Structures are given as C-alpha cells and as structure tokens.
C-alpha cells in the first residue's frame, strides 16, 4: 500500500470527525490480507479497520450505507457489546471505500440450492465462498446482508480492542491484565482505579491486539435490545447530512437532463438557456447536458430551456410492445429450471387450474432525488455521495475524469432512501464529470424529480404462467414459467461489462426457492432480451415472484377447498419448520378463522426471501366510499433479532413499500420514454391510507436472516388475496387500482 494512499485515507478520517490521536482495532485474522484504511500519523497507532480509540472517545467504522434501515446503529452495537463502551460515547462513521470492508455474504448467495435447505456444512460453504468478495474489493450494501456479514466481524473487532485496552492499562498500572475489568468506556483495576479508554490511546500503539473468544449471547447488554439510533437526533433536527446537503466554499449548483430514451442525444440548442439568470455554464455530457448555476432552481429552469433532440430508444417503444416482448420469451428456451421436483409432465389425478399474471415496471422513487457533490482539482477528485457501492463508485469516478482510484476520495453520506437505486454508479459519476468541467469549483448536483423518475434503473415488468393440480385438499403439482428481462444480467453488463455465466437465480427467487413440499414442482425462468435499464429494487426477484407465486397458491387453496392459511401451512410444515412457524404465528396473531363479515376481507401470504420467512395477514374493508386496508399482521423469523425496534420498523417499512407498489405504482413507456414524472402520477402510501401494524419476531431460524427486504414480497399478494376475499374478484395484474376501488 503506497504512502500516498495511506495519507489520503487518514486525511479522510480527520476531515470527517476531527479526530486527533487514535488507535484502531479489528479482526486481525480475517483482515490480515486487506490493508487497514485507518492509517495513523505521528503519536497514533492503528491496528485494524473498525474501532478507533481517540483521546476524545470511541469512533466505530460502520462501513455500510445508512439508507434508513438502521445499519449503522446495529453495526455499532455489535462492536460496542464487546468493547464495553458507553452508548452515548460512540461516534459512528461510514469510513472510506476499502477492501477491508468487503461484503462477505454476496458471493456465497450464488451457490446453488434454495437457502431454506441449507445444512450447517452448506452454510459454511457459503461463508467461505463469500470471503472471495475480499479479492474483488466488493464493498456493497444490499441483499439484506449486513447483519449476517458483520455479526462476528464487528464483535471480534470490539473484543480484540477491549483486550488491547486492558493490556495497555495493565502495563501502566503494573497489574496483570486478567485482573482488570472494563465498563462504560473505562478500564477498572481491582483497587477501583479507573482509566478512561481515551487516556490509553497513545499507549495502544505498542500493543498487539489479542484474539479472544466472543461473549455468550446470554450476557449481552446492547444486542437483542432496542438501541437509540445513532442517526436519530441528526435526522429530527435537520443536521444529518445527505449528499445534497454538502456545503463547500465557492460552491456552484448543477442539475442535468440526460437522455430519457437511454440512447443518447442527437443535438441540443442552449441559446435560450445560456443567458438566463444565474447560469454559469452548460456542459455537453454527450448523452445529455448539465447546467451549472449560482442556485439549483436557476439551474433547473435553464436546463428545462435547453432544446434537446434525443436519439430514439433501442428497446420497444411503448408499454404494450414491451409486454409483448416479455410474453414472446415465454415460448423461447428456459434460462433456468432450478426447481424441478418430481415430474410435472406426468399425468396427475385431481383438479387442474391455470392462470397468468403480470406485474408492471416500477421506479424506486427515493425521497432524495439522485444527488452528489464533487470537487475536481486536476490531480485529485473528492466526491460526496450517498451510495451503496463505494469501491466500485470510487473507481468509476476516477476513470470518468482520467484519474487513478488513489487520487479519489469518496465520502459516503447518509442516503435519502436507497431501495437498490443508490447501488448504481451513474449519479456519482455525473457529478464527477460536471466538476471536471469546472476545475477548482465544488459542484453540488441534484436531479429534478422528473429526471429521477425518468432515469431510473427500473424493477422490470414480468409475466408468469402457472398450472396447478390439487387433490384431496392439497397441492400435488405446480408448473410455472416466469418471463422478464434479467436484472442480474442487465446490471452486470452495466457495472462490469460482462453477463454472469450460468442460470440466473435472482430471476426466479421468491418462486423456485420457496419451502413448499409439492410432489411435482417446477419453475422455469425465461429471460427477455430487451435493453430497458433495470436494476435492484427492494427484494429484487422476490418483489415479482412473491406476488405471482403466492397469489397462485391462494388460487390453488380455493380450488382445493382448503383454508388458505392451512393450505400454506401444510405445504411448509414438511419442508421448513421456521416457515411453518411464521404462518402459524400470523394465524394466531390475527385470530384467523377464514370467516369475515360481509364488508371485511382478509388475505394471507407467505414468502421466504434473503434467509427470512415472513407471513402476513391483511384485512381490508369496503367503507362504502372505497376500500381501505385496516390492519396488517406480520410474523418473521430472523433467527437472531439484534435490534427489535429496528427490525420491526423494517418489517412495516417493507410492507408499506410493497403495498404502495401493489396498490397504485406503475411505470409506463411511450415513444421510448417513461411517462411518469412526479409524485402526482407515481404516488405511494400516505398517512391516511396506511394500516395499523402488529409484528411478531420469532427466533427459531438456525441461520440469521435479513431484515430490510423480506417484508416486501408477501405484502403484495396478502393485499390481493384480501381483496379477493372481500370481492370475489381475483386480480392477476398489478397495480390493484386497475381492478378495485381503493382509497388512495
């Protein structure tokens, strides 16, 4: 590791938190091959990447994007649990992009086989393969991986730091380290003498942090409890900094208009815009333009005044044509058949049903439109960006302005919503390119809402065809085909230039990997080869397949004459006990009887995603003035719940995100461009439409599950199933507002 790089990283930390004098610790064993990005200067010591003790307190590096899911709080709690640091003494930073912060779970998720079937051996194999992520500098937040990723890493970092502090104190006091205790950021001697951690910062440079055993979970003080979020006070006082809140001396403000056809720009005429108030420069970006001005609004006014001719799109130009392309791929060869139990071609006795489903294109619509701030000074680039993939984004920004990654400093700020959108590199790279057009001037770029809506990487539309057979009240056959463009292929081509080999498992997640014992069960994935830019949208494939598969399961239950909750329970019980457990729990919580008054409907749904089985019951009411959702009960089994308040919030958040989409969201295309532009034509749930929630968290799952995404997949079918129960009408297309008179 070059000296220049180490100085740059150190500067990052000092710049971020005004830390003077410190020592850093971590899991030396796991990270010994990954350079520690926290490099100390004179009079300081740094031993590894997660814990920094300074004269002023304890700083913990939580190197995952805080997009609302509470990740920084629970990552801090994991280290603090072992470190015996007082909660109010902790400062939490995201830290710089670094190999040491690689995601150790992502790659393991690609090992074949449904996750619910994992044995301890298979689970260990996933963990080993995940560590290869280190070699790829794969620092990324997504896939509901953060807690699985850091459950041991952060605790080891805290434990190792604690023991090093004891060794430093032992030397000073002349007593054996084994006689010392730690509590509330102090080392305590047998005679009651206390030494604050900060006082030991200098002495720590001489200490090699020891390896120690992790504490018994029965002794936990922070983990398993609802901790005050470290970002809460900042977020309720307007002092938390998002990328768009960056303020630098001499800063100018920019916005962009990029090709809504995603195919480029034929020509533009900026003569009307050039002389408008506040305009400093109009930058030709090749496939669009940027306006730099003295004020963001003036930049937006001028950008709107630029007359641009866009190159026609390379994909079918409207929603119907896109849908026809997806339908056509159902008749082509399957890309995957990762679930093929029994023989779906055999003649099976019973009642046969068949149905086809469609779900639309969706936007992420984060509250903060895409934004980033950048300063280019010729041989250096500094970028402030709320992002989910810092190492890749640092490298992409460097390449875009002709620098090396070592010349780029990337500050990952809070994200004003992510949901997968901020794993993309486009917005950070654009800020870097605009800044490069005005060297020495800091540029704060934010997109208009319309630009954000029309330049998204969408959740693709999809079509499924299912055929099922039920006999004696049970499912005996389910044969399904799912067609859509591939998120995995599309995003891999965009980000790495190559499509991954092998069958696309993400495409069929939420369907092929469900813990259902159906004797003849096949799911085929069909990939549609169209170039609409698509990306990861909260729960990805399961956001599609959760609705389509579970709705068909509901149809099968009705065809079988079996209570829909019992029908799912029968399917899950033989296959995966934690899944059966959440279905039973949600039945008990909701007082499920299968009977409702005439103006009330109830639906149940289940989905296993990101390692977590989630069952939901939704109750809807026909108020006479439209249908509203009264209540939603959620049962989830994450194995170990590290922070109940945060997990509860993620479960309700995931469901609300799903209800919003299921009720009313749809992206449509005309002339190769997205038609929606703002919240008046792409809206979401609001205060008056949100139901009451009740959440129960179970802990029987043998492996830790994710929290941020698993609440979304079952919400959409649970709502549709409840509407069927209320009205007798089965909606096989989303959004549901097309079929039902919902109160919006």
């Amino acid at each position, binding site marked *: 590791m070059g000296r220049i790089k180490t100085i740059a990283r150190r500067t990052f930390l000092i710049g971020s938190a005004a830390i003077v004098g410190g020592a850093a610790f971590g899991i030396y064993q796991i990270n010994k091959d990954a350079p520690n990005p926290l490099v100390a200067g004179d009079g300081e010591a740094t031993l590894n990447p997660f814990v920094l003790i300074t004269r002023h307190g304890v700083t913990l590096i939580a190197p995952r994007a805080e997009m609302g899911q509470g990740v920084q709080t629970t990552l801090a709690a994991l280290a603090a649990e072992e470190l015996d640091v007082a909660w109010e003494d902790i400062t939490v930073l995201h830290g710089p992009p670094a190999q040491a912060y690689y995601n150790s779970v992502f790659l393991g998720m690609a090992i074949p086989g449904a996750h619910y079937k994992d044995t301890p051996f298979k689970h260990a194999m996933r963990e080993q393969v995940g560590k290869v992520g280190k070699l790829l500098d794969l620092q990324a937040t997504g896939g509901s991986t953060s807690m699985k990723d850091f459950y041991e890493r952060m605790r080891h970092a805290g434990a190792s730091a604690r023991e090093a502090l004891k060794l430093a104190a032992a030397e000073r006091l002349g007593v054996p380290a084994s006689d010392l205790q730690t509590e509330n950021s102090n080392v305590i001697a047998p005679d009651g003498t206390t030494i604050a951690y900060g006082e030991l910062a200098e002495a720590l440079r001489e200490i090699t942090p020891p390896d120690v055993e992790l504490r018994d979970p029965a002794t936990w003080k922070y983990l398993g409890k609802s901790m005050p979020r470290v970002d809460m006070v900042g977020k309720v006082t*307007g002092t938390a900094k998002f990328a768009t809140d960056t303020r630098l001396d001499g800063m100018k403000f920019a916005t962009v208009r990029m090709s809504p056809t995603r195919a480029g720009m034929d020509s533009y005429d900026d003569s009307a815009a050039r002389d408008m108030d506040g305009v400093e420069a109009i930058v030709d970006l090749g496939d669009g333009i940027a306006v730099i001005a003295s*004020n963001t609004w003036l930049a937006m006014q001028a950008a709107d005044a630029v007359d641009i001719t866009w190159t026609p799109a390379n994909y079918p130009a409207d929603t119907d044509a896109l849908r026809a392309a997806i339908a056509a791929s159902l008749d082509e060869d399957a890309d995957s058949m990762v679930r093929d139990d029994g023989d779906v071609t055999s003649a099976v006795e019973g009642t046969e049903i068949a149905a086809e489903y469609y779900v639309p294109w969706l936007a992420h619509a984060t509250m903060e439109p895409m934004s980033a701030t950048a300063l280019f000074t010729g041989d250096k680039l500094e970028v402030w960006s709320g992002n989910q993939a810092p190492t890749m984004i640092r490298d992409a920004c460097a390449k875009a302005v002709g620098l090396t990654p070592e010349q780029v400093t990337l500050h990952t700020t*809070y994200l004003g919503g992510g949901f997968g959108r901020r794993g993309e590199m486009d917005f950070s790279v654009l800020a870097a390119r605009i800044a490069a057009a005005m060297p020495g001037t800091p540029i704060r770029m934010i997109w208009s809402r319309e630009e954000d809506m029309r330049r998204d990487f969408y959740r693709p539309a999809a079509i499924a065809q299912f055929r099922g057979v039920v006999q004696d009240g049970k499912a005996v056959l389910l044969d399904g085909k799912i067609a859509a463009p591939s998120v995995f292929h599309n995003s891999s081509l965009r980000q790495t230039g190559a499509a991954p080999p092998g069958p696309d498992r993400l495409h069929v997640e939420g369907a092929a990997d469900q813990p259902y014992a159906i004797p003849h069960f096949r799911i085929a994935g069909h990939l549609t080869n169209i170039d609409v830019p698509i990306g990861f949208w909260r729960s990805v494939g399961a956001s599609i397949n959760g609705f389509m598969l579970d709705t068909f399961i509901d149809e099968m239950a009705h065809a079988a004459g079996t209570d829909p909750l019992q029908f799912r329970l029968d399917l899950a019980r033989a296959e995966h006990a934690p899944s059966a457990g959440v279905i039973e729990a949600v039945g008990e919580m909701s007082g499920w009887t299968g009977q409702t008054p005439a103006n009330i409907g109830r639906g149940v749904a289940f989905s296993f995603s990101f390692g977590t089985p989630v069952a939901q019951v939704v109750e809807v009411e026909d108020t006479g003035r439209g249908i509203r959702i009264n209540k939603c009960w959620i049962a989830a089994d994450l194995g170990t719940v590290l922070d109940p308040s945060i997990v509860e919030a993620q479960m309700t958040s995931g469901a609300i995100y799903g209800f919003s989409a299921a009720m009313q969201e749809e992206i449509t295309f005309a002339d190769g461009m997205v038609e929606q532009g703002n919240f008046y034509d792409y809206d979401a749930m609001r205060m008056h439409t949100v139901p009451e*929630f009740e959440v129960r968290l179970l802990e029987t799952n043998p492996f830790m599950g994710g929290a941020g995404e698993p609440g979304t997949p079952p919400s959409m079918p649970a709502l549709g199933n409840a509407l069927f129960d209320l009205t007798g009408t089965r909606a096989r297309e989303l959004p549901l507002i097309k079929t039902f008179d919902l109160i919006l």
Partner: protein
Amino acid sequence: MATRLTINGTAHDVDLPENVPLLWVLRDEIGLTGTKFGCGVAACGACTVHIDGEAVRSCQVALADVWGEVTTIEGLGTPDAMATIQQAWVDHQVAQCGYCQSGQIMNAAALLAQTPQPTDQDIDDAMQGNLCRCGTYPRIRAAIKDAAQRLAEET
C-alpha cells in the same frame, strides 16, 4: 435588489431573482439544508417550513412573496435543545432514511399549534401531503399523539 427575510429570528438580505422559491433561498443561499427538496411541485411536503407559524411548501413560495417570519427545522430546535415534538420523534425512533422528516415535523408542529389534541382523522387530514417512502407513518402518528400529550402537560 436584495430582499430582506427574517429566518429563525435572524435578518438576511438575499440577492437573488425574486422568483426563486424560498426552498432554494434557504438551501443554497442561506445554507439551511435541513429543509429538503423532494418534488418541486408541492406533492411531497419535504420542503415544509413555517411562515408566521403556518406550514407552507417552500418550493411554492417565491422569494418576493414571503409574507412573514420564516421558521425552519433548524429554528424549531437544535440537537442540544430539541423542541418537544422533536424529542417525541426521538423517543418513538421515527426516522429511517430521514430525508422527509424535517418536513413531517414542521407540518406536525403546525398541526399541534392549531389543534393541540388532534384525533386520528385530524392527523390523517393534516399529514397526508407529506410523503415518506420508508413508511414511517405509524411511528409519526404515535409521536404526534405523544407530543400533544406532553405539550398539554407543559402548559
């Protein structure tokens, strides 16, 4: 010509065209970034501030039309001295991504000033213009009711 505004009790002379919305005066000129841009068309409420105590969408109020004293989230309370309603937000751990919360809080503060003991219907009516993509609504509702209770006890 400069326009004089009073923001959080401090006078500012603003040298910007008179049609620039208050939102962008606050964020880009004054440096009060707690007030957020979400939509630009009064459809999300992220930019809500008070003018003479009334909740307004600052993206829709031109600089020349600001008719009274402006209060932003920074003027409501600070991390060391939070307003009662902000403390309720902390106690109920409301925020997720947090981007909409300045607007939510400013809107709720105006509601409580007008209607000290709001019913669920009052909360629905007053708050439905404020969008939250994280779906923090259940906790916002709880925090508003709690703040109402505390404010009643304080007086």
